[in-house]
C-alpha cells in the first residue's frame, strides 16, 4: 500500500506497530482486512456446505446407484459408492450449520458490517479494532473445530442443525451424538463469542462514531440493517449459549435439563427425570427465529443500497423501510413458537404465536412493495450486483408468501417438517440471503480489493444461479404439500413417495448446474483480486461515503479529515443537478462549504452532534408510536 508517508507519521505514535506480514494480513486490526478475512473464510465454508448438499442430493436422486467417487471421497462412509445413512444425517446437519451460521451469519454480516459500517458512517475504524480482530479469530477457530468434527471416527453431529435433544444428548442414540456432537457444541460456543464481539462493536460504532452531519436518518439503509442485525444477535445469541451449556451439562455431567422418561435400546431405563426436550426447543428457537432475520436483514440492507444506486433513484420510503426493519426486529423475538406448533405445546400458546407471526408479514410486505416502487420509473443499470438484488426481491416474495401457510398453526399440522418447509426457508432465507451476499460482493469488490470483477462472467453467474435455484427449490413445495417428509435418506422404500423420483432427479441436476455456475464466480473473484481491471474511485457513481476514500486502502480510511455529510444517501437524479447522483459528502453548491447545516452543531470529528440522535428516525418512530409528539 502506497501510504508510506502516512505510516511514517502513524508509526511515531506507537513504536511496536510494525506492519509486518502477520500484523497486516493475519492478526490485522484494520476493519477492511478483517472484512476480507471474513469474506474469504465464508466463501470457503460456502464451498464446503454446497459440496455437501450436492453429495446428499446425489443420494436422493439416485438412491440405488453406486458412485465410486463417493467411496473415494468419503472412505468408510461411502462404502460401495453409497452414502451411509448415518453420514447422510451428518452431511445434512453440517450443511445446515455451515450455511446458516458460517456463511450467512459470519460470512455475510462479518464481511459487510466490518467493511461498510466505518466507511459509510465516516469512522476511522471500528470502536474496538482489537475486539474486532478477536471476533474474526474466534470465528476462524470455530470453523476449524467444526471442520475437524467431520473427520471424527463416529461421524459429525447428525441430529439436524437444530440438534434437538434427547437425540443429540445421548451418545448411544446415534453415532453422531458422540464426539462429533461435542465438537459441534464447542464450535458453536466459539461462534457465539465471535458473534458477540462483532455485534457489540457494530452497535457502538454506529451509535458513537458517525462523522459530522451523519445523523441517524442520513445513514444508508445498509447501516440500519447491520445495526438492527447486531442488536438481534447480541440479544439472542446468549440464549443459544445457555441452551448449549445445558445440553453440555446433560451430556457430560448427568443433569436432566432436557431429559426425562427415557429408555434406550441396549442401555435400559435412564435415571434422568423431570427435564423437558421442549425446553430446549424454546431456548433454541428464541435464537433461531431472530437468527433467520440476522441472516436476511443485512441482505435486505445491501439490496436497498444497490437497487437505489443502480436504479439511479432515491429508495422509495426510506422511513417506512427503517420502521419496517425495526418492526421486524422487534417482532422477531416473539414469534419463535411458530417452529413448535406441533410439539405438544399448549394449543392456546400456538394461537398467540400464530397471530404474532402473521403480523410480521405486514412489515415484510411493505419492504417488498417499496423495492418495486423504487424500480418503478428508475433508470436501471444491470450490473451483476443489481441483478442479484433483483433476484433477492424475487426470492423474498416467493419465499415470503409461503410463510403465510407455515405461520398458520392449523396448516402447519400438515406442512411441518415436510419439504414445503425446505422450499420455504431455502427461498426466503437461503437463496435470498446468498443473493444479497453476492450483490454485496459484486458491488463492493472495488472497495475491498481496488479492482473490478468481470461483468460478463457476473451475468452468466447470475442467470445460471437464479434459474437453478428456482428449479431446485420451487418443486419442493409440491413435494411438501403431498406430505413428503424432510431429512429422509431415501424414498424408494415408501411407495407413496415414489412418484417424486423424477422430481428428485430434476432437482439434483439443477443443483449440479447451480454448483457449476459457482465456478464462474470463484474464478472471477480470485482472478480479479490479482488481475482485475483497476477500479476508479467511485465506479458505480454512488452517493455514499465509502466511495470518497482512496482506492488504495490506508489505515484510518481517509488521508485527511473525514468528510462531512450534507444530506441523505439517496439523492439520485435530482432535477436540479446535471449529474444523476449527488454524493452525501459534497456540500450544496449554493451554500458555503464550511457553513454548518441547520440544526447541527460544529463538533469535533468522530463525535456525534448531540442533537442528531434525538432527531433520528429511531426516536421519531418511538415518539410516534407512543404518541409523544
Amino acid at each position, binding site marked *: 500500500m502506497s501510504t508510506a508517508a502516512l505510516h511514517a507519521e502513524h508509526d511515531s505514535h506507537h513504536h511496536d506497530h510494525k506492519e509486518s506480514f502477520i500484523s497486516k494480513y493475519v492478526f490485522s486490526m484494520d476493519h477492511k482486512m478483517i472484512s476480507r478475512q471474513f469474506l474469504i473464510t465464508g466463501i470457503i465454508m460456502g464451498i464446503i456446505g454446497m459440496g455437501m448438499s450436492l453429495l446428499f442430493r446425489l443420494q436422493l436422486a439416485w438412491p440405488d446407484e453406486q458412485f465410486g467417487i463417493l467411496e473415494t471421497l468419503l472412505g468408510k462412509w461411502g462404502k460401495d459408492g453409497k452414502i451411509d445413512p448415518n453420514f447422510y444425517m451428518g452431511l445434512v446437519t453440517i450443511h445446515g450449520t455451515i450455511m446458516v451460521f458460517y456463511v450467512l451469519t459470519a460470512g455475510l454480516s462479518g464481511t459487510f458490517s466490518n467493511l461498510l459500517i466505518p466507511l459509510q458512517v465516516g469512522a476511522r475504524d471500528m470502536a474496538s479494532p482489537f475486539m474486532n480482530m478477536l471476533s474474526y479469530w474466534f470465528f476462524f477457530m470455530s470453523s*476449524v473445530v467444526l471442520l475437524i468434527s467431520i473427520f471424527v471416527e463416529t461421524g459429525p453431529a447428525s441430529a439436524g442443525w437444530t440438534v434437538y435433544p434427547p437425540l443429540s444428548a445421548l451418545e448411544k442414540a446415534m453415532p453422531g451424538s458422540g464426539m462429533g456432537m461435542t*465438537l459441534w457444541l464447542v464450535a458453536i460456543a466459539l461462534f457465539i463469542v465471535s458473534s458477540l464481539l462483532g455485534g457489540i462493536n457494530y452497535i457502538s460504532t454506529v451509535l458513537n462514531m458517525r462523522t459530522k452531519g451523519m445523523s441517524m436518518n442520513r445513514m444508508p439503509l445498509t447501516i440500519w440493517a447491520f445495526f438492527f442485525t447486531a442488536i438481534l444477535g447480541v440479544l439472542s445469541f446468549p440464549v443459544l449459549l445457555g441452551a448449549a451449556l445445558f445440553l453440555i451439562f446433560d451430556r457430560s455431567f448427568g443433569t436432566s435439563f432436557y431429559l426425562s422418561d*427415557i429408555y434406550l435400546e441396549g442401555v435400559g431405563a435412564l435415571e434422568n427425570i423431570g427435564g423437558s426436550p421442549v425446553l430446549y426447543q424454546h431456548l433454541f428457537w428464541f435464537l433461531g427465529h431472530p437468527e433467520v432475520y440476522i441472516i436476511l436483514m443485512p441482505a435486505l440492507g445491501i439490496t436497498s443500497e444497490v437497487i437505489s444506486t443502480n436504479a439511479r433513484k432515491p429508495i422509495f420510503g426510506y422511513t417506512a423501510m427503517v420502521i419496517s426493519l425495526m418492526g421486524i426486529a422487534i417482532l422477531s423475538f416473539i414469534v419463535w413458537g411458530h417452529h413448535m406448533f406441533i410439539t405438544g405445546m399448549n394449543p392456546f400458546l*400456538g394461537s398467540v404465536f*400464530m397471530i404474532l407471526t402473521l403480523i410480521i*408479514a405486514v412489515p415484510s410486505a411493505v419492504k417488498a412493495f417499496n423495492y*418495486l416502487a423504487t424500480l418503478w420509473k428508475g433508470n436501471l443499470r444491470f450490473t451483476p450486483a443489481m441483478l442479484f438484488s433483483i433476484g433477492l426481491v424475487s426470492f423474498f416474495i416467493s419465499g415470503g408468501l409461503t410463510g403465510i401457510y407455515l405461520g398458520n398453526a392449523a396448516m402447519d399440522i400438515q406442512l411441518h417438517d415436510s419439504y414445503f418447509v425446505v422450499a420455504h426457508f431455502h427461498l426466503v432465507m437461503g437463496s435470498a440471503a446468498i443473493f444479497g451476499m453476492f450483490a454485496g460482493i459484486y458491488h463492493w469488490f472495488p472497495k475491498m480489493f481496488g479492482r473490478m470483477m468481470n461483468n460478463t462472467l457476473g451475468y452468466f453467474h447470475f442467470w445460471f444461479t437464479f434459474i437453478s435455484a428456482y428449479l431446485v427449490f420451487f418443486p419442493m413445495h409440491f413435494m411438501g404439500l403431498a406430505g413428503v417428509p424432510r431429512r429422509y435418506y431415501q424414498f424408494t422404500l415408501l411407495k*407413496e413417495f415414489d412418484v417424486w423420483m423424477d422430481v428428485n432427479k430434476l432437482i439434483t441436476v439443477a443443483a449440479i448446474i447451480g454448483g457449476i455456475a459457482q465456478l464462474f464466480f470463484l474464478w472471477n473473484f480470485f482472478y480479479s483480486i490479482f488481475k482485475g481491471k483497476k477500479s476508479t474511485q467511485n465506479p458505480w457513481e454512488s452517493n455514499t461515503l465509502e466511495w470518497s476514500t482512496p482506492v488504495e486502502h490506508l489505515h484510518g480510511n481517509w488521508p485527511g479529515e473525514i468528510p462531512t455529510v450534507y444530506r441523505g444517501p439517496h439523492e439520485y437524479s435530482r432535477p436540479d443537478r446535471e449529474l444523476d447522483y449527488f454524493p452525501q459528502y459534497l456540500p450544496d453548491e449554493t451554500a458555503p462549504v464550511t457553513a454548518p447545516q441547520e440544526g447541527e452543531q460544529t463538533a469535533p470529528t468522530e463525535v456525534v452532534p448531540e442533537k442528531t440522535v434525538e432527531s433520528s428516525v429511531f426516536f421519531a418512530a418511538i415518539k410516534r408510536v407512543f404518541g409523544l409528539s
Partner: protein
Amino acid sequence: MADISKFARRKNLFWFRKMKLNLFGVKSNSLFKKTLAIFGLMLTPIFLLAADDVVAAPTEFNPMAWDWSSILTLVLAILIILVIARSFDIGSLTEKITGKTIVSWNNVNAWAGIIFLVLGLIGVWYEMKVHGKYLKLGDSASAHGETLDSMFYWTFGFTFFVFVITEVLLFYFMYKYKYDKNRKAAYFFHNNKLEIIWTIVPAIVLTFLVLRGFSTWTKITTDIDKNSEEIEVFGYQFGWKARYAGDDKQMGTANFNFISGSNPLGVAEDSAVSSLVQELNGEIVKLEAVKAAIEDSSKLWKAQYDRYVSTGMSSSYPEEFKIMKSKYNDLISGAYERQLEKDIKRKNTAIKRILAYQKDHETFNGTAKDDKITTEIVIVKNKPYILKFRARDVIHSAYIPEFRVQMNCVPGMPTSFAFTPIRTTAEARATKNDPEFDYYLFCNKICGAAHYNMKIKITVVGSEEEYKTWLATQTPFVAPPAAPAAPTAPKADSTAVKQGTVVKN
C-alpha cells in the same frame, strides 16, 4: 492528520497490550504472539479431545482403488468451465481494445428478465398440472382435514395472486425502465397514500386468514368428542406400536421403567414387571462379578497389550490394536470401572422405582392385562378417535399426511391428537385407482439412521364389526387362562371408557 494519531493512541488503552507474556519460558509482549498463545491454549484441549477420535488417515492409502474416471471427468469439467471463464475476460478485453461494444449487456439482461418471467410462469403452470394431481389436497381422509384444505385454497388464492402480480411487475419494470442515458429517473421519496394502502390491505387480508386459522386450530386442538376412542401410539428407534384397551375398555397405565424385552411399551402388569426386576437383579450380579475381577482382567489386557507392542503386531493389525488399546486405556484409567459402577447404580435406581410403583395399586390395577399391543392400526370410518402418543427414546413425530394429522411424540411428555376418519382404505383405493394403496403413519422428526423407514400401517374399515373381528385376532398382553372364548360383550356405553393415564414421575 490530528485525528489519525488520536485514533492510533486510543488503541493503546488495552491492558492486553501492556500485559507481559511468560509462557513456557517464552517471554514476549508482542501482541500477536500473545494472541496466538491464547488461541493455542484454547484450542489444545479441543485437539487433545478429538485427536483420539479423528481418523488419522484412511487406513490404507490406495490410489488404485479410487474412482479415477469420475475424478478425471470432474477435473476436466472444471477446467473447461475455467477456460470458458477465461475467454470472457479476453472477450471484454477485445471490447476494450476495439472500443466497440459488441453486446449491449444492459438490454440483454432486461430481455432475459422477460424471458425468465414467461418461462417461469409456464413452468409454474406445468408443475401444477403435472404434480397437482399428486397433492393430497382435496381428498382429505379426515373430517378436520377438509376444513384445512379449504383454508389452504383460500391462502393459495391470495398468495398466488400476490405472487403473480409482484413477480410480473418486478420483471416488467426491469424491462421497461432499463437504462437510457437520455432519460433521468423520477425523483421522489415516498407517497403516503400508496404506502398506507399497501400496509392496510395486506393487514386486512392477513387478519381474515388469521381469524380462520385461529378458529380452525382451536377447534382441532380443543373441541374433542367425549366419546372418542383412545388408541395409544408408541414410537421408538425405529418403529411404531399401537395399544388398544382390550375387553375391559380400560387402557392400563405404563411407565418407561417397566420397559423390557417382553414388555416393549412398559405397561403396568405385575408378572411382567416382576420378571423385569429379577432380570435386572441378575444383571447387577453379573456386573458386580465383572467389577470384582477387574484386577485380573487388567493384568490380562496388559499382557495382551505388551505382546502386541513387543511383537510388532500393533502395526500389522492396526484395527485390532486400536480397539484393544482403547479397552486397555479404559481399564488402566479406571474409566471402565466407573462405567460399571454407573450401570449398576442405574439398574438399582430402576429397581427401586419399580418396587415403589408396585406398591401403588392405582398403577397396578390389572387393567393392563387385556391390553392389545399391535403392529398395525385399525380404525372405523366416521368414529372419533384420540391418538395418545408416547416415545421411548428420542423425539419422534407421528405424521399421517392423508389425515392431516401430525403430533410430536416426546419422551416424558404424553401428547395427543383427535380426529375422525371419513374415508375407508377401500374407498381410497377406489378413488386413487390403486389397489395396493394403504394409509401410513410416518415418523417426521429426525430420530436416527433409520428415520426414513419408520412407519406403521393404518387401515380404515367401514364397520364396527370388521374392526371387532380384527381386534379379536390380536393377542392380549397376558393371555387369558384358557377361558372359553367370551362372546363379544354387549356394546358398552362408550362414555364409560375410562381414560388410561400414563404414570408420570
